[in-house]
């Protein structure tokens, strides 16, 4: 029997949304493989997490009552033990920061191939994974030449499974080897509070690496002023210290959903898009017609921002 084992993500007392998307990917793969679909939840309030994860298509939820929060050493040991217990053919996890902190270790420890950041899976005689390369400019398919594998899935690519299921919930006990735990989580910190909350803004003018120099920020500031909009940014602008962290839109920054989002010189990397795809109207100004931002934009100008932005500002003055 080939089982699929999916490991849910949670943080500070709540399952993360991608965990429910993981259920869709896992069920799909289990059907293709003709096996059972098992879900594991490790640490935290595992009982209530298990209740929530008991959704349509899940056969078994394994609860591992070990610690409050994510610890990669505990996850590695628990997942390896569970994998053996259920004889898993496939292990799935979100391609999250924590997923990437233990999936490569588990795959390496079990000597099975790892494919990260999958956007689609197909299984016939073997597994075929679709993933992107070169900053989302191309898609590729990767064939996995092994009958066991670990895949991490990108969030937002599978629908979240909603309906209640009738899974059996089974506590899983294993002997944690304390001596192999070499990392200790000490706490959490919130970052990026400050003068403005970009997630409140109706209109965002967002600036990316295309702006090239700090001095050039003036031209997007002028646009934001003229539009009565708030200025936000992609990561490189914040990494360079040109704008504070609370202006960063994206996976590790803020999630925003304004009426209008104007992306100026932003390529639309997946971690950026994660923060702004909920905007009602998306406008992109970019010299590269193949920039992935145009895939989600409603309106676009393929041109030099240094030419277009001042013209646009003028229209509103």
């Amino acid at each position, binding site marked *: 029997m080939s089982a699929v084992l999916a490991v849910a993500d949670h943080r500070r007392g709540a399952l993360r949304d991608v965990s429910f998307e993981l259920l869709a990917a896992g069920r799909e793969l289990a059907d293709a493989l003709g096996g059972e679909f098992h879900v594991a939840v490790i640490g935290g309030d595992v009982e209530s997490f298990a209740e929530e994860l008991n959704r349509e298509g899940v056969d078994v939820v394994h609860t591992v009552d070990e610690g409050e929060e994510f610890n990669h050493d505990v996850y590695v040991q628990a997942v390896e033990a569970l994998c053996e217990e259920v004889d898993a053919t496939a292990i799935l996890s979100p391609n*999250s920061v924590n997923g990437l902190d233990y999936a490569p270790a588990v795959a390496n420890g079990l000597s099975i191939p790892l494919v990260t950041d999958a956007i689609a899976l197909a299984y016939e005689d073997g597994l075929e994974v679709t993933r992107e390369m*070169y900053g989302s400019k191309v898609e590729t398919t990767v064939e996995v030449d092994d009958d066991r594998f670990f895949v991490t899935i990108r969030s937002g690519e599978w629908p979240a499974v909603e309906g209640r299921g009738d899974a059996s919930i089974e506590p899983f006990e294993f002997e944690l080897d304390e001596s192999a735990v070499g990392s200790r989580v000490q706490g959490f910190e919130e970052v990026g509070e400050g003068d403005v909350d970009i997630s409140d803004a109706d209109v965002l003018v967002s600036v990316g690496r295309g702006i090239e120099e700090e001095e050039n920020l003036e031209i997007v500031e002028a646009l934001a002023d003229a539009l009565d909009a708030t200025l936000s940014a992609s990561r490189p602008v914040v990494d360079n210290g040109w704008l504070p962290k609370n202006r960063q839109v994206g996976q590790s920054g803020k999630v925003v959903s304004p*009426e209008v989002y104007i992306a100026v010189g932003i390529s639309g990397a997946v971690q950026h898009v994660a923060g702004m795809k909920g905007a009602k109207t998306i406008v992109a100004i970019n010299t590269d017609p193949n920039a992935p931002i145009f895939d989600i934009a409603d309106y676009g100008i393929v041109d030099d921002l240094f030419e277009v932005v001042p013209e646009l500002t003028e229209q509103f003055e």
Partner: protein
Amino acid sequence: MKVLVTVKEVAEAADDFEISGIEIEEGYLEYDLNEWDDYAIEEAVQLSEQRDDVETVGVTIGPERSEETIRMALAKGIDRAVRVWDDAIERQDLLDVDAKARLLEAVVEAEDPDLVLSGVQANDDSFGATGVALARQLGFQWAAVVNRMELSDDDTIANVRRELEGGVEELTEIDMPAVLTIQTGINEPRYASLRGIRQAQSKEIDVQSLDDLGLGEEAVEGELDLTSMYEPVSESDAEIFEGDPDETAGKLAAVLQEKGVGAQ
């Protein structure tokens, strides 16, 4: 103490490009130092500037062309460089995570560093997994997506901050030796000085084949095959405004005004 930094030359596709087979055609690719590795290099160099017992070594897996990239690391202050390459590596269309980990493991065994710094991901294949796989392969501890690191006085513990999603950061204590994958923004990478660049030109790069590392060809034979590459079908129904900047800006302004933008 010794710090090993993994450095990758990454390819970037031009705005317009063509694919032939499972590759972007060579003429459309530009090579550069992986953005995340630049921050890892800076972190190592800063450590060596703060203390006088630190040696830094850069290691790359790459063809001769990639010496340009590893020289960038030398120009920025990395002390020595190792480049791993072999015909057997050249033959792989996709070097999988474990293959990279095995190659780097052999270098780590020869160099015996106390700390390995690696970028969170490489901008071309964005697997984001090499550092953590390497740690496991070595039996080292690790942390992924680190945006602050401080070593304890006796170098037995790395106190790190891991950047999670949604503006939340995790504070974690990691036993050393360890592999840390470095996130952008942890520092401000320096530009290589002209003097640094000149000096780097004359430094020797230690080229290691599989044989030199005591590995056989099977070490790089992975289980992943790249079977196709294509431009994604755009699901976009974006309206693209055509014309000179004043025309396009005018058309966009009209749309924005219709949506009430700038109306106060």
